[in-house]
């Protein structure tokens, strides 16, 4: 029951992200999503209080809930932007896409052959809609910070799925992915900072005009 509530809250954060133009709010929502999801391994595994599971939950909560937001807020401050002004796809349309994506992932999840039953009926659809909304954010937004957020949301979706079919092996993979994401966000933070210092903006659509 608790797990269902967490998963549905995560589902709502996906939709909220698609509808929000304020970058600060987006970062906070993504952080909240990360913290909510880091509770999942504690709920799905049988020996929840083993050092490994506890480590994974704590590690991902710290990374996604504290470190990433800090990094991204620093980038925001240095790049001096606060909102996405002209996205490729408007917020209303994005939100409708989000609902369609959620509907499709519920439908697919019902027809998805799984090796073992998942801990919650909402795990697969929430994971899948997370991946789609993350990808959509990367495609539909111009601001580099939003694209980084889309990347994190995408990883959160994969993490959700991993937490559902938790075995020793997937724990290991999870750790690896977490590390990758950390490096990626770190690098993107630095890159965005440099882009905005060089060109006074960080709209990625204008990067294609660069000539040497």
């Amino acid at each position, binding site marked *: 029951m608790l797990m269902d509530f967490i998963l549905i809250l995560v589902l709502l954060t996906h939709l909220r992200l698609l509808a929000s133009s304020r970058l600060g709010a987006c970062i906070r929502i993504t952080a909240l999503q990360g913290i909510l999801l880091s509770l999942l391994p504690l709920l799905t595994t049988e020996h929840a209080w083993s050092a490994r599971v506890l480590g994974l939950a704590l590690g991902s909560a710290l990374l996604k809930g504290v470190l990433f937001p800090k990094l991204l807020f620093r980038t925001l401050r240095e790049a001096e932007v606060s909102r996405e002004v002209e996205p490729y796809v408007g917020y209303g349309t994005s939100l*409708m896409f989000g609902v369609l994506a959620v509907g499709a992932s519920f439908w697919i999840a019902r027809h998805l052959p799984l090796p073992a039953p998942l801990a919650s009926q909402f795990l697969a659809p929430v994971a899948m809609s997370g991946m789609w909304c993350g990808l959509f954010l990367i495609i539909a937004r111009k601001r580099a910070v939003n694209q980084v957020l889309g990347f994190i949301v995408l990883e959160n979706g994969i993490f959700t799925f991993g937490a559902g079919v938790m075995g020793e092996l997937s724990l290991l993979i999870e750790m690896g992915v977490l590390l990758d994401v950390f490096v990626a966000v770190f690098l993107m933070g630095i890159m965005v900072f440099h882009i905005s210092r060089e060109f006074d903006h960080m709209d990625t659509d204008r990067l294609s005009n660069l000539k040497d």
Partner: protein
Amino acid sequence: MTSFVPLVLGLTLAPLLMGVINRTKAFFAGRQGQPLLQLYYDLWKLLRKGAVYSQTTTWIFRAGPIVGLACAVAALALMPLLRTPAPVSFAGDFILAVYLLGLGRFFTVLAALDTGSSFEGMGASREAHFAALAEPALLLALVTLVLMVGEKSLSGLMGNLDALHWLNSGPALVLILAALFMVLLAENARIPVDDPNTHLELTMIHEVMVLDHGGPDFALIQYGAALKLWFFASLVVSVALPLPEMPLALLAVAGVAGVMLVGVGVGILESTMARLRLLTVPYFLLGATVLAAVALLLTAFRA
């Protein structure tokens, strides 16, 4: 005659609900506020006055308030209060209720356009715009309830919705409640969408459409608005409070107390929140639709 209880309660106590909201707002503003029964006094005063009609108006202008009130009463006749069934109920009556309110609004809009004032036309256009966006949210929420409970009439829905539903599909019900409350605010011109007290021409929506009505016509409009608010408040309360079977008198008391609590909630919300910019109102309503749609998905795909 038990089933006439919700209708009679609504018809007599709806103006009191407005008083409760006003008193709550006054309390938060540190004022004493109007008497609780102010709307009754207002209605009595207005009914004794004469009406003045502009020469540009036709019969539509005069029919507007009457049709509006008739639609509100008819819709209220379909609405149960908690487990007490409504006087009229049949399969699919929730659709009729939604569109009765729609018909009432249609006539209010026509009457506003009939005055020929560009100012009223602006309000009419806004009202029609926002109502069109609120409608899918309301219908999706009701359809989700129908799917969840398996009954096709409003009275059947509320009569069979019990604590077990809250236990089994709590998240979906919370989403439905949120969507219904947002629709309540939008449909009744309450604060995040429209400010019932404002008379600033650029911002008001509902109030601007009824500026040219006076006397008994205006009384009908105000009474109709109170009935509509009662309709939505009892819808919200009936979903939120899945009470077990109990004697009729107790149910009625609980229902009225619940509706008044919704009024207090609206008052608190209005005191603590600023009005949304007109451009962001569609997003507010889209949000309500999305919440209802997610609830529908959760219900349709439950294991």
